[in-house]
């Protein structure tokens, strides 16, 4: 597995993810392609490769889904184990590993929320220490709803049916309110996504851009963690009140 170490040393240079390395089979030089130019053997994806680079896409949040799918289908035709079943075991293993990575990459990038989460993880470092508590107003609202849910669950005897249906209505109303709030958060997240893309594509001073990026990443992280609270609550409400 020597080629892996070789790649790892290059992983820092993110702009060149498929940088020069040697074909695992014929030792000839492979430059950024998935198949060796000499012996046409499939090459393992480098360990430092991120999902955006795998798709040869810039690290932007607004992605044309049609284009993403087209690249995914193309790369699937390159890597899928179905096309390697007559090849030797090394090639089979590489195709399996590459294919598994490609599928994870596509699943993540296809979903707009997961895409943002992934970008934040990639750019980590700067945005590691974000508090994970929801803001006070949301926190109180959730606590109150938890109490109501608790009493709703305890009302099971037939004589409680009126009280139960009243509470159900209240909880359903609260759920609609939360769903509304979730939609607003998502709108805010898309605005931030555009902001990120603007900073990323602008030709500004690298240090200044880094600061700007961190600000955007932080606010996206905050929206995402608040959204998680709401999603979980909505899920619980749906499961309990139907």
């Amino acid at each position, binding site marked *: 597995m020597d080629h892996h170490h070789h790649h790892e040393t290059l992983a820092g240079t993110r702009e060149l993810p498929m940088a020069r390395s040697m074909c695992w089979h014929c030792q000839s030089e492979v430059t950024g392609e998935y198949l060796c130019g000499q012996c046409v053997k499939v090459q393992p994806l480098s360990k430092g490769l991120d999902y955006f680079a795998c798709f040869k896409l810039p690290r932007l949040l607004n992605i044309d889904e049609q284009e993403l799918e087209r690249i995914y*289908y193309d790369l*699937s035709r390159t890597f899928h184990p179905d*096309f390697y079943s007559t090849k030797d075991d090394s090639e089979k293993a590489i195709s399996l590993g590459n294919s598994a990575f490609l599928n994870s990459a596509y699943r993540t990038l296809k979903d707009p929320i997961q895409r943002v989460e992934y970008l934040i993880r990639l750019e980590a470092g700067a945005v590691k220490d974000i508090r994970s508590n929801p803001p006070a107003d949301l926190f109180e609202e959730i606590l109150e709803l938890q109490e109501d849910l608790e009493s709703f669950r305890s009302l099971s005897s037939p004589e409680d049916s009126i009280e139960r249906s009243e509470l159900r209505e209240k909880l359903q109303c609260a759920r609609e309110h939360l769903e509304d709030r979730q939609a607003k958060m998502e709108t805010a997240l898309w605005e931030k996504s555009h902001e990120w893309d603007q900073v990323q594509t602008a030709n500004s001073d690298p240090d200044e851009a880094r600061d700007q990026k961190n600000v955007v990443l932080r606010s996206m992280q905050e929206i995402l963690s608040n959204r998680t609270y709401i999603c979980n609550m909505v899920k619980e409400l749906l499961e309990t009140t139907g």
Partner: protein
Amino acid sequence: MSRIVGIDLGTTNSLIAYMDKGTPRVIPSPDGKTLVPSIVGMTDNGLIVGDPAKAHLTRDPSRTIYSVKRFMGKGLADVKDELKYFPYSLHEKNGVIRIEIGDKTYTPPQVSAMILKELKRRAEEFLKEDISKAVITVPAYFNDSQRQATKDAGMIAGLEVLRIINEPTAASLAYGLQKKTQGLIAIYDLGGGTFDVSILKLKDGIFEVFATNGDAHLGGDDFDQRLVDLLVKDIAETHGLQVQDHSDLMQVVRLESERAKVRLSDETATTVVVELPHGKYEKTLTREALESLVMELVERTLAPCRSALKDAGLRADQIDEVVLVGGSTRMPLVRTKVAGLFGRQPHSELNPDEVVALGAAVQADILGGHNKEILLLDVTPLSMGIETMGGVMSALIRRNTTIPTSSKEMFTTYADGQTSVDIHILQGERELVKDNRSLARFQLKMPPLPAGVPRVEVTFLIDANGILHVTARDIRTSEAQSVQVKPSHGLTDDEVEGMIRESFQFAEEDIKARQVIEARTEANAIIAATEKALARASDLISDKENTEIQRVIQQLGETQKVDDHRAIRAGIAEVEKVTHHLAEVLMDATLKEALESKKVSEFVK
């Protein structure tokens, strides 16, 4: 690269198909039948498989195994509710069901291997070449253990299983290839024992599965059972006979129920006739009556359809085409319900019995490197995870994730100097471990260090067959660790190897049984032909000759009942000898007739 065949290993019937110049074709038996009943009979002379075994079912039910697919990859507790329906006894060893026949026991993969061998033999005879590689289909909703058991069955049968492919997706390959369809399609596959639904997108040769769902325990067998229950009750009331106490009669009722169900797809009423020890039982059944019996079962298929749509992020009206697969979709009630759910008439132009095997042949062609246009991207049907504190399952790979896929997890120790960590792998959608399926367990070795210091990374990889592979690596030393995974409901590698050896030993007995069957079939054919010839030509031969011929065919009729192929062969030779003159006479007569009617030109041709 030797040829790869496609096999549909079904609950009630199995088929084998191959690719003939770009067109998938099912391989028929010499008498033109494409379906091999998935039934295995153990006779005093060895094994019989398929149609002969089906005949054996009512003669010797306790030594005839059917619907073995229901037991694949399972423990006894999984099938306890239906044990009463099966005429043979089962027990469990090492988490695997064992079927007891006489003083021998068989695992479900061994029995499936017997069916696979019969299919293999059929293909070898038809194609006149050795067959050693296959693609085998499984229900999409099969879990890891059931897939592994199917792969084991292939190995025991002497087949290299290049791919386990999902039945509905196989059907979509055959359908897509023939119809050149593009767009969103739903495959509704209701077979003998299992139900699957898959939602796919077909675009430029890529078959991308978005979601799959199903019920690995719902199919035509269950419809039959409802009818059987009704008839058994009715026979008890009208004739005072407890059918369940007579296993042979029970099988007669079961087969008659199946036939009646099939007839009611074309007719609105039918009569079931069962010969009882003391008289005949007759019952007229209407399609309506059958429908009300199975309504609840058919409706049970709709919830998985809705779940699959939801997971695919689609509404029913966005689906462009609905395709029906599996024999049970011939029922008008099923068609009505499916049409109602999707708001459109489902397609049923392709033979629902054959389309899965045809698709397997297409996939075999792809794997053989002969088709670079088509690529199938399938998903894993169930979430896979591990047991965590408090008996809760933590999902690592979600259901409907495109395969191959992998997930990495880091493990460490809780106590100083701890040298191992036990890991329990599960599959299922429920919160608690006890509600999910236990797949396997393994022990991870840890270096003896202070608690929390060791770091071992485990990779859970689901391959393109939907089968899990586990590898581990110590992060500190970068060293790979071999992982011995112990399946919860599967055979170990050693057991499979033992069974492969055993299956070669059985082969000799099987050949004997086969020779008897072939000789018997031939004997019956020659008796029928001779009787027909006698009827036509009795006035052309002497009374003496006539009597002699009558005598030898009657004798052969007796001989063929005995399980001795040599004696039957000798009887056939005798008949051929005695009827030699008759054949000549008939030939002359035919020739004369032909010449007289002046169709000389046609005759010469």
